[in-house]
């Protein structure tokens, strides 16, 4: 039911871990629902120079975390903000219908982490 790409990102996830002095951190989901995703960002001159994640969840949750962090690394913030859950799912060669919400988590976590960065650095910008 999962694509080979999903399985690859699940078995060999990229960017697992924490960034101790992260510029933006955000956690979405809760253990009651069975999924938590936490994303750490290191940002320099408006560019996401590093991204890491920790995830408690299904195969799709792990794979979308891995893919989402890959997709925003090295990108300007503005571009990262354009990341959609659909784009993440497509990059993974698709997700089963019942697993699309896991990719939503990834989008929310990335946006939340950027918002956290804005807040921490006194930047007066809104993330919708």
């Amino acid at each position, binding site marked *: 039911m999962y694509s080979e790409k999903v399985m690859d990102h699940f078995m060999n996830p990229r960017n697992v871990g924490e960034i101790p002095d992260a510029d933006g951190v955000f956690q979405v989901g809760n*253990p009651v629902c*069975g999924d938590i995703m936490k994303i750490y960002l290191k940002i320099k001159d408006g560019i996401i120079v590093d991204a890491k994640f920790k995830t*408690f969840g*299904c195969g799709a949750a792990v794979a979308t975390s891995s893919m989402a962090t890959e997709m925003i690394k090295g990108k300007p913030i503005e571009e990262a903000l354009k990341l959609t859950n659909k784009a993440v799912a497509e990059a993974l060669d698709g997700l089963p219908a019942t697993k699309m919400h896991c990719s939503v988590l990834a989008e929310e976590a990335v946006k939340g982490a950027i918002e956290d960065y804005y807040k921490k650095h006194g930047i007066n910008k809104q993330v919708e």
Partner: protein
Amino acid sequence: MEKIYLDNAATTPVKKEVLDEMMPYFSEKFGNASTLYSYGRESKKALDIARDRVAKALGADPAEIYFTSGGTESDNWAIKAAAYALREKGNHIITTSIEHHAVLHTCEYLKKQGFKITYLPVDEYGLVDVEEVKKAITDQTILISVMYANNEVGTIEPVAEIGEIAKERGILFHTDAVQAVGHIPVDVKKLNCDMLSLSAHKFYGPKGIGALYIRKGVKIHPYMHGGGQEKGRRAGTENIPAIVGLGKAIELATQNLNQSMEKLTFLRNKLINGLLNKIDHVKLNGHPEKRLPGNVNISVEYVEGESMLLSLDMKGICASSGSACTSGSLDPSHVLLAMGLPHELAHGSLRFSIGEQNTEEEIDYVIQVLPDIVARLREMSPLYEKAREGK
């Protein structure tokens, strides 16, 4: 890669001896058992033999065995048709919160039609309290349905005692024995039950065939209306090959019961002990002793069930989980929640159901690979991190 199949509670392969007996009935002795002549006679005979075998395995009379399309139909039939037949007498049904969905969703359906359902609670081991059954009975109670053994955590319920109470109070008693038949001794007399559901594919018989035992004298409606098959109580052309398969499978299972229980119990205990010793923050779900010989159900803290299943699958091991992520539903296993497990632990549950074909080496292999899988997933888990920091 050789697969290690440890999901025998979901379904089992058809045994060679069983398939061999079924084979002639597909294309050679294919006659409709309801026709009177030649072709039909062979089918009728095969039908009778199978019915005898099922009856013998359950300590029932052949006239009390009705073939169905499986456990789900048996449960739907027993519960709906008893409810409809006894509507005049009362509208209250007692069941438990850990039944299979074939019972639970049927009860929910009846609820919409005006029936009142009591879902009995269970203790931390998944056991129903006989006293709770007594307390729940009202003068409107027409049916009690309690499963013999739970499919997720393997807990064996005090069905004989509950049946005794039902009998004393003149209330119909049904038990879903789908996970019990072929795995532990089942005797309808000793269980004091009026109806009992079973399904062949859970004990090396074919899929799509089951039976409902209906004690003589118990009057419930038919569920399939049509031709006069099964004495007019279950219409539809008899599925002879599958019925023959059910008969053979139940005979084999009953003959080898002691031996297989001993073997499975040994493997089960080895797997439980191995996993509890090798992985920290792990909990056994279900009753430590009153438990199906082949059932192992554990909760692994800080990791999610589906990701464990996927990782096990990559290592060639098939198991199952009560995690909501696996089932595509929102809530994790209703059984684990009813036992009082917090959602997090229910999400992190794994079930290994051992079958006759499994070997000690396979169990050793699971004990060897699961700890690494858990370690890898915990490395990724924000919950584990927190837990460690908390220390």
